[in-house]
């Protein structure tokens, strides 16, 4: 165990820090053209006509395409998660809108030209005539019978309705000491990685083969989808994922521009490059989060929660072929999170509106469930006049009850939630904080502390989809002893390649520097589902481990024969294979590798299969898709979690909230590399904080996006994000060979509940109650004013 558990730097870092990373936009091909996309300026309209005459004539233009062309040339894009498979509605999504637009930014036409300037100029010459349709941008309004309809054939805007139910909820409510109701609202925001989306498609006419370089998270599923859309054989398509500049879910396929660039390359016989502009990204690159969360909770006077009713309304914007709407489904699947509330029901409506479609964003609905459950616990605590942490401790699933099945079928794998919370309270000085708070309050400062807890189910595995619970890897040793690992998982810049290299180096007993990890090339790598849901290390790493062990076994067999001993008597470390306890009897790993490759007929290697290569697949053992006696299935295999404490200061004159401290105890099972895990967690907290306070996709009543650039969609900078104090609690997963659980996503969910709780605590003198996000200064200031005037119903800004 030389590398597992140690803080090894990222194996790509030295290259990236010198500016040598090659991202999709950095790839160029001779003769390539540039694609520009014409997008709808209306939130809801019928397309009456499109005049492309002037654009066609513009110098340098190679092709102009509209929905009518696309319909002739291609098929609809298969949905990554088809709502109809969940009993929901669906619609066909083509690369361009066919006759109707559903949000500002809907792609309606495309141009390819010799230069970027020519493409943009020609795009501006395309005349689209629209007939306005009434717009609906509010999900609750969209559910009303007289609402405008996005997809009239549905006769409703409800994409899907889901119910989970367990226990005897009515009885629990009848027996309760207190019943509390509240309505929360999470606002719309997005992942927005620093690298925009990008694609370079090259259809080679002679070879009749398509190559797509693309900033994606899932090259293999994308290839399968492209084959379907473009009516090509999968064998004739190669998808290559260059370095990716951040993804966070929002680069899970399939967006319209990817097959669109491929189609236009095929039609022109030349490469086509497309690089998304930030404005396009913020309009049409995948939104998230916007949900209304209503709850009614029944509790005893001692803080025990006996019943919970939840109603979630997910505002998923217009429908696209990406999997974003699934986040609202997962939000309902996770309730009641880490708590033991057997009498529980969740009622979910996923609703379409005339806003940008959702795509995945780190959290994937778990942040909504966390926020909801943290607010539930805080409300209960305040009502029964108990400490907010104490109420959580009272209601956690006890550590000896795992695996624990929630009402949705979510099967919590392992953990010690109470200990995590107690530990983080100790580290943060929870018990002594009130004194400090009093002291500062006397100086006119408003400081608050909050607790929160996030449960982050990982490695989602949805029946009949490419959101699956398995992964593949190949480990190959060359004659010179160099190790190549080819994985089906990919890295969007999250570092799993380093963790996987550590696992393989340890399994083979070789130096880390001899291990090369190859990812994101459908021509080279075993079929795999890519990167999302923190699955890469615990699934891809497990497959890599299995493959490395198999190769290691062969190496030891040959070495044992050479050293005239048994394989069990050998140790392999740093490329030296030694007889245990006898330092002078050894052979080099490299020499064994060379022997196996060059001398398959000599006696040390004669009795085994030649070659030093293995491909293995790993499947999670605790997923079940056959319904249990209550009709439940389990779609998540791994349940990491984090207990958190936040300290904030609120400037009551301006409403500015400053996060002063964020402390966590985090369990992701066995930690392969603390540097990487902590880096991920810190980055996730920054995104949670950004989402809670600084970032908002805001629409006016006509469905116009008002925050379409980084001027007004404000990401947090180094000034706003404090360094998180991260502590590990390692409860190994019983379901992976190394005890790893999902890592990488965690940290994004807890800031919502934890910081909101801290802000309420800081504003206790005014009795402010927070129901809605974001906590922008203006809104916080209004909450303070409203509370001062005796109304703590929350601000509607």
């Amino acid at each position, binding site marked *: 165990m030389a590398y597992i558990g140690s803080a090894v730097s990222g194996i790509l870092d*030295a290259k990236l820090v010198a500016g040598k990373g090659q991202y999709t936009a950095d790839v160029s091909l001779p003769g390539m053209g540039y694609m520009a996309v014409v997008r709808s300026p209306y939130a809801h309209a019928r397309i009456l006509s499109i005049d492309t005459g002037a654009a066609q004539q513009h110098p340098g233009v190679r092709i102009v395409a509209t929905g009518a062309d696309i319909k002739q040339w291609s098929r609809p894009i298969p949905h990554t998660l088809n709502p109809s498979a969940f009993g929901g509605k669906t619609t066909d999504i083509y690369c361009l809108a066919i006759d109707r637009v559903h949000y500002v930014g809907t792609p309606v036409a495309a141009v390819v030209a010799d230069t970027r300037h020519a493409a943009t100029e020609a795009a501006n010459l395309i005349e689209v005539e629209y007939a306005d349709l009434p717009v609906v941008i509010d999900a609750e309004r969209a559910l009303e019978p007289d609402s405008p309809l996005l997809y009239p054939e549905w006769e409703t805007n409800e994409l899907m309705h889901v119910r989970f139910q367990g226990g005897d909820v009515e009885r629990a409510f009848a027996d309760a000491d207190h019943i509390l109701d509240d309505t929360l609202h999470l606002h719309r925001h997005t992942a927005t990685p620093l690298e925009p989306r990008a694609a370079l498609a090259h259809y080679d006419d002679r070879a009749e083969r398509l190559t797509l370089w693309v900033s994606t998270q899932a090259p293999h599923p994308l290839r399968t989808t492209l084959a379907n859309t473009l009516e090509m054989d999968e064998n004739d398509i190669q998808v290559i994922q260059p370095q990716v500049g951040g993804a966070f879910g929002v680069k899970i396929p399939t967006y319209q521009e990817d097959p669109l660039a491929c189609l236009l390359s095929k039609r022109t016989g030349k490469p086509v490059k497309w690089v998304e502009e930030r404005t396009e990204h913020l309009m049409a690159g995948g939104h998230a989060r916007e949900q209304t969360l209503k709850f009614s909770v029944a509790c005893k006077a001692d803080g025990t929660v006996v019943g919970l009713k939840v109603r979630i309304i997910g505002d998923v914007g217009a429908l696209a072929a990406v999997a974003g709407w699934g986040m609202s489904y997962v939000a309902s699947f996770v309730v009641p999170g880490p708590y033991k509330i057997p009498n529980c029901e969740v009622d979910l409506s996923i609703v379409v509106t005339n806003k940008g479609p959702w795509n995945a964003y780190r959290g994937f609905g778990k942040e909504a469930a966390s926020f909801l459950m943290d607010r539930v616990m805080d409300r209960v605590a305040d009502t029964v006049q108990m400490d907010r942490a104490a109420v959580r401790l009272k209601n956690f699933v006890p550590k000896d009850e795992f695996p624990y099945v929630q009402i949705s079928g979510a099967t919590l794998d392992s953990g010690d939630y109470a200990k995590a919370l107690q530990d983080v309270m100790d580290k943060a000085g929870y018990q002594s904080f009130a004194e400090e708070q009093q002291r500062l309050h006397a100086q006119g400062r408003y400081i608050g502390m909050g607790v929160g807890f996030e449960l982050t189910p990982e490695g989602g595995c949805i029946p009949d989809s490419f959101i699956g619970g398995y992964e593949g890897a190949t480990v190959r040793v060359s004659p010179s002893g160099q190790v190549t690992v080819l994985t089906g998982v990919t890295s969007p810049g999250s570092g799993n390649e380093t963790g996987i290299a550590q696992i393989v180096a340890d399994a083979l007993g070789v130096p880390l520097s001899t291990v090369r990890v190859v990812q994101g090339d459908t021509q080279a790598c075993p079929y795999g589902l890519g990167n999302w849901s923190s699955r890469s290390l615990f699934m891809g790493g497990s497959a890599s481990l299995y493959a490395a062990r198999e190769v290691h076994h062969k190496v030891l067999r040959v070495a044992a024969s050479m050293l005239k001993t048994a394989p069990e008597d050998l140790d392999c470390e740093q490329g030296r294979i030694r007889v245990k306890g006898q330092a002078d009897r050894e052979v080099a790993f490299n020499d064994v590798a060379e022997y196996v490759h060059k001398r398959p007929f000599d006696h040390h290697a004669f009795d085994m299969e030649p070659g030093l290569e293995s491909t293995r697949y790993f499947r999670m053992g605790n997923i079940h898709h056959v319904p249990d006696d209550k009709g439940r299935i389990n779609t998540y295999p791994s349940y990491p979690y984090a207990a958190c404490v936040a300290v904030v200061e609120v400037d009551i004159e301006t409403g500015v909230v400053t996060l002063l401290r964020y402390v966590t105890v985090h369990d992701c099972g066995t930690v392969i590399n603390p540097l990487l895990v902590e*880096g991920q967690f810190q980055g996730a907290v920054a995104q949670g904080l950004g989402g809670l306070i600084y970032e908002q996709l805001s629409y006016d009543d006509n469905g116009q996006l008002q925050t379409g650039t980084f001027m007004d969609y404000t990401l947090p900078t180094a000034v706003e994000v404090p360094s998180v104090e991260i502590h590990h609690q390692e409860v190994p997963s019983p379901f992976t060979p190394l005890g790893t659980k999902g890592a990488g996503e965690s940290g994004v969910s807890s800031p919502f509940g934890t910081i909101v709780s801290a802000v309420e605590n800081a504003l206790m003198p005014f009795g402010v109650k927070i129901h809605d996000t974001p906590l922008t200064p203006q809104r916080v200031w209004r909450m303070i004013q409203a509370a001062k005037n005796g109304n703590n119903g929350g601000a509607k800004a």
Partner: protein
Amino acid sequence: MHTTIQLTVNNAPCEATVDTRTLLVDFLRDQLDLTGTHLGCATGNCGACTVVLDGLTVKACTVLAADVAGSAVTTIEGWTQDARQSGDLHPIQDAFVKHHALQCGFCTPGMVLSVQQLLKEKPNPTEAEIRHGIAGNLCRCTGYASIVKAVQEIARMSSE
């Protein structure tokens, strides 16, 4: 409209014909193949396009290529080349690697150049000065903690 400009890029003289609308960032990337300078927003907010122009960092999406005639531009490629003292990387870059002050690496070249500017102006910055010094460079991955740590270490090393 096109114009011909002469300038110095990464210490070498350079002459090029550019469309007058071309941004410096696009000129560097598309015409000179210096792809270590990245484009994240084109509105001057993210800092991924940071380069050194006549000795000062600038966001290359806020400058027209035609306007830099006669100037000296240094990109991450040239700076890395110049900065090599021993080993392969500049101490700032070494500290970034050691502390894993990058994940996807998209913001990193710009971030490194802003850090060198900061340390030139303030060799011994406080944590608050570090945070303000890099506030013009957004990083969506790291949450900045590891970057701050890396800069603190460089400052400590150079003051020893």
